[in-house]
């Protein structure tokens, strides 16, 4: 049975899972969830994803949610095909990978997500933007990217010399902040700019952007 991704084609974290499936040459079927009609908040949906969020996958009856967990599962299950070593296995390389994943979790995502919430989500819901909060989020993200600039001055990718899931995890919300919302945080940070240009040029990401 082909892997089913339950979600909505424009949802950032659905796109992340689709990207990783493409990296690993894993065919998938996107099963649409009517998020604009609140389908993800129904009891029937919450049987599968109790937080009422997308995506979740159905891999031949095995249900899994949380996009980063799904990406790890796909990368490990299909370790021997497609882009190699998206999750490194040698103990120290794996530790540095986990450090990089945690950097994205704590030092990138909360700010990128918060900016997206203020500028896009609130607008959709007719809520007022909190300028002070937005300003804080933007300056915090810039401060974190100053550190990325140092790290990426020493190595090509966040976990070392090769691309891993830690880099790919930045794609959906990085695209929203830097491209869709047009925040220019890369011009003054040439190493980050180089890394961003590299990971956003990956065919798997371009394919998902065109059509998840």
């Amino acid at each position: 049975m082909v892997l089913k991704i339950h979600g909505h084609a424009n949802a950032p974290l659905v796109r992340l899972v689709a990207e990783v499936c493409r990296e690993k040459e894993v065919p998938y079927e996107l099963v649409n969830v009517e998020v604009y009609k609140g389908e993800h908040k129904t009891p029937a949906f919450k049987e599968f994803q109790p937080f009422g969020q997308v995506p979740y996958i159905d891999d031949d009856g095995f249900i899994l949610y949380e996009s980063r967990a799904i990406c790890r599962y796909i990368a490990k299950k299909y370790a021997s095909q497609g882009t190699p070593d998206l999750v490194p296995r040698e103990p120290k390389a794996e530790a540095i990978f986990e450090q990089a994943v945690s950097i994205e979790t704590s030092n990138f995502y909360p700010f990128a997500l918060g900016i997206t919430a203020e500028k896009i989500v609130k607008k959709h819901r007719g809520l007022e933007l909190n300028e002070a909060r937005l300003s804080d989020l933007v300056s915090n993200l810039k401060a974190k990217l100053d550190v990325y600039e140092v790290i990426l001055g020493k190595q090509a990718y966040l976990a070392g010399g090769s691309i891993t899931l830690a880099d790919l995890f930045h794609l959906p919300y990085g695209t929203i902040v830097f491209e869709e919302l047009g925040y220019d945080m890369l011009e003054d940070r040439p190493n980050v700019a180089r890394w961003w240009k590299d990971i956003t040029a990956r065919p798997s990401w371009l394919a998902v952007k065109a059509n998840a």
Partner: protein
Amino acid sequence: MVKLYGFSSSTCTRLVALVCKEKNIPYELIQVNLAKGEHKRPAFTANQPFGQVPYIDDEGFILYESRAIARYLIKKHPNEGTPLIPSDPKAEALFEQAASIEAFNFTAFVAPIVAEKVFNPRRGLQPNEERVKELLASLQPKLDAYDLILSKQKYLAGDFVTLADLAHLPYGTAFYGAGFAEMFESRPHLARWWKDISNRPAWLAVKDGA
């Protein structure tokens, strides 16, 4: 011996200490003086470029981000103490799901609430009550989901305790003690799980200081 650079009451430092206790790993806590800005100085940022605690030095191997440190130590000592990360592929995937739940559906809300209500007053700052209210409103349905999950299984990843459960303890304990105990206690399955994990001997050993 693992050198743990942090400070005794730091939430993230105590997570690493907790894992060391669970796995019987000896460690030496090396106090970093935040009040004097030690964590922002070059000697520190050479090892932890974000200027945050903790980081470890394991016989010359430097690692930061407490969840990464925890995972590294657990995987380095698979046969000692409590197994905390499963190796069976599906069980591992469900562990990763639970670990992600902790980061994005719990700590993402609980940590800023604790920062406002516990850390700010310590620094002579006023809590932003409006922000706390918003965060609590987001957290409530998340805790309902926890209660649902924990009505069907003992721990977040299944029937055995994992790192995913333990990762809730530092911020969760501060939250519980800051006047929000009712949010756990009013949800029977969540309360049952919380009582279980918060009474683990390893947590009790580091709860009041790494």
